[in-house]
């Protein structure tokens, strides 16, 4: 009996059932991290959802005003802890934009390689936990098994599994160890059948489709109005990806790479003949489409990593020298947004000529993606709230900073 929000039905009201104020508290298995969602429900039907954030607020921006840019890199790791590499990349590129610094060829390809591997790892977590939200435990295990392999690769590169601080301003802390590329290719070769398994278990699973199709439908204008970016925006059919449409100093990293932006433009996904078709029940912009966009993006990223490996091998051996810790920043300010797995992650640095920036600002994508949930969950059932929350794929470390 999900109430469809078609026209304004005026049904007279005689049985007074008082509204139940239920909150999915900070420690709730299906809120990804420390998020409290206050749900005002009448029986099973949700009338109002208001998320409460701030439980994980560490005021990283205030610390940014007391440490030099290279010392702030570990703080960017802890923002979106599921894709630490992409956060480092964002901050490094912003400061390089301020310094007007050019990177050698090899460093650029190395960064593309590592960033796309980070994106695969983050999307695997998103797919796994989404299956967990809807009750099927097994895809979670498959996704995390693959993610473990990627983390092993990262461990070989920089010694850490979650908080890397690998990509710094001026390049990377250390070049790739010998034999790493072969292991990375071995991982990629055995990865494709796993994606087909996930498609079989989730995307084309009848119960999964019933739990996600036509739930949490987000219109493109509302998405842009609420500032949603990344898979949430592309799930609503807006073909917008910073790797192609971003600022020059970010898109020049991806120059010469062949990849497609995954969005359903006039009814078709790019290369969708290889993947399960869009079910009839799915409406553009619902939870199913957001999930489907992430699954296809993983395939694009695999292609990108292969191209990056091949270009990395051909590029000259110099992979850039990180700047000195106490190097003075020129006076001025720079803002740059990069395509992190969860959306557009923006960093801003303002400096007045000293080594320590005057102001460091981080704009989080999940912050805006989460703000749209009150719009999506009006009139759905209580069981749909985790389904919508899972499809938005938010991380609280990034929201609360």
């Amino acid at each position, binding site marked *: 009996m999900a109430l469809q929000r078609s026209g*304004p039905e005026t049904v*007279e009201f005689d*049985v007074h059932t008082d509204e139940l104020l239920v909150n999915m508290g900070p420690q709730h298995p299906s809120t990804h991290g420390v998020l409290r969602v206050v749900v005002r429900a009448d029986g099973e039907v949700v009338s109002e959802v208001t998320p409460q954030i701030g439980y994980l607020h560490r005021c990283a921006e205030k610390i940014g005003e007391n440490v030099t840019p290279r010392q702030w890199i570990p703080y960017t790791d802890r923002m979106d802890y599921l894709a630490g590499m992409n956060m480092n990349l964002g901050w490094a590129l912003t400061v390089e934009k301020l310094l007007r610094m050019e990177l050698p060829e090899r460093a650029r390809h190395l960064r593309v390689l590592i960033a796309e591997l980070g994106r695969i790892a983050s999307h695997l977590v998103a797919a796994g936990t989404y299956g967990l939200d809807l009750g099927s435990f097994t895809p979670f295990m498959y996704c995390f098994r693959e993610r473990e392999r990627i983390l092993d690769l990262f461990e070989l590169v920089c010694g850490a599994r979650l908080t890397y601080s690998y990509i710094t301003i001026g390049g990377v802390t250390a070049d790739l160890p010998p034999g790493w590329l072969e292991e990375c290719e071995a991982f990629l070769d055995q990865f494709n059948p796993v994606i087909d398994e996930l498609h079989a278990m989730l995307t084309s699973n009848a119960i999964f489709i019933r739990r996600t199709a036509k739930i949490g439908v987000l219109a493109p204008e509302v998405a842009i109005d609420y500032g949603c970016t990344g898979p949430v925006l592309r799930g609503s059919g807006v073909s917008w990806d910073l790797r192609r449409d971003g600022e020059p100093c970010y898109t020049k990293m991806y120059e010469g790479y062949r990849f497609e932006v995954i969005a359903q433009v006039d009814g078709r996904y790019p290369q969708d003949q290889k993947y399960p078709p869009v079910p009839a029940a799915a409406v553009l912009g619902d939870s199913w489409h957001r999930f489907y966009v992430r699954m296809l993006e993983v395939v694009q990223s695999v292609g990108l990593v292969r191209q990056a490996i091949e270009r990395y091998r051909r590029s000259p051996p110099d992979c850039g020298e990180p700047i000195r810790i106490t190097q003075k920043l020129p006076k001025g300010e720079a803002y740059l947004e990069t395509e992190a797995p969860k959306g557009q992650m923006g960093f801003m640095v303002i400096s007045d000529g000293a080594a320590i920036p005057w102001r460091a600002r981080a704009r989080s994508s999940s912050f805006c993606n989460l703000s749209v949930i009150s719009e999506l969950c009006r*009139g759905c059932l209580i069981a749909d709230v985790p389904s919508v929350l899972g499809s938005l794929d938010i991380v609280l470390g990034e929201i609360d900073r």
Partner: protein
Amino acid sequence: MDINWHSFFFLLVALLTCAFALAVVISSNIVRMAFYLVLSLGGVAGLFFLAGADFLGGLQLLVYVGGTLVLLAFGVMLTARAPLVSMKTAPGQWVLAAVVGGCLLAVLLQVAWSVGQWAGPGRPGVLEEEAKPTAAPLGLGLVGVRVDQLDVDRRADLTEKEKKAREAGMSGYLVAFEVISVHLVVVLIGAAYLARAKRRVDAPLARPPQT
């Protein structure tokens, strides 16, 4: 000293049922009342099983304990907000209730003792012809004893197979039971229809405010 186990358990379960029925009346917490009601009706089902009518016992369990009391628990659970949970009864009402209850108990006991055959322990209720008309046959018929063929029961020349068939046909007059059940269904459907949720759904907020 051999104890007739059958009567012992019968009495035990009967006492338990009465005790829980009393608890239903005495307890103030409405949810505990529902729980004690479950136990007492379960006791009645136990009595049916001990009396050998296991179909009737199953029926009692299914219809009353499994069906009605689940709905009762449902109703109690949904309405049991703080003020409703503990319903204290004023002392005056206790006295009135005790008096009325006592009278009813007296009447029932008198009726029970007046039937000669039931007085003595140890003889399962095989009935002789009854001189003056009483309500007992009607009650027995309800329970399922074929009151109209009582004389057939005592004929000695019943073959084993025929006796077994009569035994199987014990629950003859179940019609009354069915009538009550159908009545119950009608009542439930009516209640569901009356309480169907009619709610005003205000116009959905189409777009964020376009001021």
